[in-house]
């Protein structure tokens, strides 16, 4: 009888592990509509296409090349992938629409579902296609660490618009570049800001690689400045945040930093409000999205976010981009769309440079990416030898009346 129970429990645990791996990889993506299936254009109508090459006139040759895109285009985290692929396609369309180009470009998408286990196959698809000369992505850190070696071996230049894990540029992925600051840079900036205001801060993380990583950096930064830090972890699959919210409230901490993703942060926000917490609440880039805004309702108002990203709906540099995006997709650009646009335009410039210097090979493109100095709408794309973007701004955001608004460079905030 009892043996029976334990067998049953074991089977359950195994089944559970399968379920968990399926559902617990967090999203830092933008929102989708209420309860309806996440909407988004998934049609793959890349600009130009290979066939277009023949129709061009006046070019040195009727060459055409492909820019690869590896990211989550299906599954739980597809919203972020959709935000980015739309921007990638827009940039390529705009390039092809300009007359007199020496070559045509098209986009080759490869879906990794945001899953590190599916990423190697997705990467192979792009590597095998000899027309692909550079890749925008991978968009998540997990898939990046699973494929960085293969891309490096193929000399394929990578420009990621959104993979923020600290270790990616320290793992020998020689062709990897990113245009966003790492979680470490972001966390340190957040810690500096919090330390200038509070003497006691409660740091909570969701025990994932991203969440714990950023929370560790924040906690270390605060301690260095002499701030008392209280630390707790709450597993990402938690549904009831009542206990931790109660603990934060009764600790008397002036501020609370949560390292984790949007959906969970929203639940935590509601629980904190219910527990009557009055202090400042803050989270990192993983929490900044419509998923948070929608899920937390009024409890999310007054939350602060640090993000090495640019809000395309307000930044003046992104005005033209915003209009073109809206026109093409009938929805405003969302989290990481502008970064996707910049990464693609930087890649296009690198291909142009390679074309001018002779032949467009993967090697030539990779060399050109390393020497890039491109002024984009979110940042100046110029890479340090490690692949990190040379100049990174961490911005502070706040949710006001159900909307996340950009307050500007966190270093300049009081």
């Amino acid at each position: 009888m009892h043996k029976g129970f334990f067998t049953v429990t074991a089977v359950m645990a195994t089944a559970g592990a399968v379920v968990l791996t399926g559902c617990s990889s967090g999203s830092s993506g933008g929102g989708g509509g209420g309860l309806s299936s996440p909407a988004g254009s998934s049609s793959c109508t890349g600009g130009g296409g290979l066939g277009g090459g023949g129709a061009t006139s006046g070019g040195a040759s009727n060459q055409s090349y492909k820019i690869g895109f590896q990211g989550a285009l299906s599954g739980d985290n597809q919203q972020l992938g959709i935000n980015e692929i739309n921007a990638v396609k827009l940039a390529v369309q705009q390039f092809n629409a300009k007359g007199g180009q020496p070559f045509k470009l098209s986009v080759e998408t490869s879906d990794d579902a945001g899953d590190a286990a599916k990423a190697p196959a997705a990467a192979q698809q792009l590597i095998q296609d000899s027309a692909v000369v550079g890749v925008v992505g991978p968009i998540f850190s997990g898939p990046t660490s699973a494929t960085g070696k293969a891309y490096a071996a193929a000399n394929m230049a990578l420009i990621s618009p959104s993979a923020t894990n600290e270790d990616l540029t320290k793992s020998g992925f020689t062709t990897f570049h990113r245009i966003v600051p790492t979680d470490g840079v972001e966390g340190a900036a957040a810690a500096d800001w919090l330390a200038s205001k509070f003497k006691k801060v409660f740091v909570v993380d969701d025990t994932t690689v991203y969440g714990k990583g950023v929370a560790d950096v924040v906690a270390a930064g605060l301690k260095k400045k002499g701030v008392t830090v209280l630390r707790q972890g709450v597993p990402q699959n938690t549904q009831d945040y009542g206990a931790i919210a109660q603990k934060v409230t009764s600790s008397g901490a002036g501020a609370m930093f949560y390292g984790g993703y949007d959906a969970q942060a929203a639940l935590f926000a509601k629980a904190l409000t219910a527990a009557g917490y009055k202090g400042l609440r803050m989270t990192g880039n993983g929490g900044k999205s419509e998923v948070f805004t929608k899920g937390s309702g009024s409890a999310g108002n007054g939350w602060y976010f640090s993000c090495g990203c640019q809000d395309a709906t307000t930044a003046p540099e992104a005005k033209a981009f915003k209009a073109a995006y809206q026109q093409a997709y009938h929805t405003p650009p969302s989290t990481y769309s502008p970064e996707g646009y910049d990464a693609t335009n930087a890649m296009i410039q690198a291909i142009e440079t390679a074309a001018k210097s002779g032949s467009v090979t993967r090697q030539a493109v990779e060399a050109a990416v390393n020497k890039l100095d491109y002024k984009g709408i979110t940042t100046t794309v110029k890479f340090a030898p490690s692949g990190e973007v040379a100049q990174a701004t961490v911005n502070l955001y706040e949710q006001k009346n159900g909307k996340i608004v950009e307050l500007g460079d966190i270093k300049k905030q009081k």
Partner: protein
Amino acid sequence: MTQFLNYLVLGLTRGSLYALIALGYTLVYGVLQLINFAHSEVFMSGAFGSYLVISAVVGNGKGTSSWEVPFVMLLGVVTGAVTAGAIAWSLERVAYRPLRRRNAPKLAFLISAIGASFFLSQLFGKMFNRFTNNQFPPFFNDNSVAFTIAGAQVRVIQVVDILAALVMMVLLDRLVNKTKLGRSIRAVSEDAPTAALMGIDIDRTISRTFVIGGLLGGAAGFLFGLNFSFFNTMGFLPGVKAFAAAVLGGIGNIRGAMIGGLLLGIVENIIPTLPWVGTEWTDVVAFIVLVLVLMFRPTGILGERLGRAA
């Protein structure tokens, strides 16, 4: 003290929901000696079913006046229960009855249960979405405080959860002990072939047992969704915990499931928040308690009870 009371209230709330779900496991175990692993998805379906009705009735929830709130909640409990009852009924029809007809081994039931569980959670993911924080329309202020004991605030929603669970458990207890259906459930649990000889329709009794478990689970699904959030895989963790609660109280024992659920909820809220433990250990603590109890009382707190008046 205030702190302790705060955590106790949180624990009672979560525990009463665990208890409602645990009853579904224990009832079915009673009649079939089978752990219905798809019960966690029955629970989930209750949340989605009640969402459809509630959002149709209250819209975005802004225009709901305070006197309507209790009725909306009642509607939620009822529609959640009915949806889940229907799902549980079909589950028994599709996943278990054909196997029973063919005298399939116990393991086949287990696989069938796991398959049904995956099917249902993916089906709801496909039909609705896969986000993990769907919310009911805010038709009431979920921060409003009902009363305060010794400085500890008790919110209205917590009172609703605990009361609803208590009422349903008392009703179930009456049903099982006093009615004809209850008697046939007990008879089938004790000795199914003999019960059949005495004129009890076994298939019908089993089917109704599933429905009763589904009704309770669905109501819990609504309350859970209202309290926290609901999504297609929401059933897994509460399902495992409720299963543990059922074992803790003594599987097959109805009062045991209630006590097990409450105990697990309280332990989960009080022990991890002690200064030297930490909330990342919440799930570990729950199962350590389970193991400790089973070490000293292998049949659970109240003991396994199959058939004997629960």
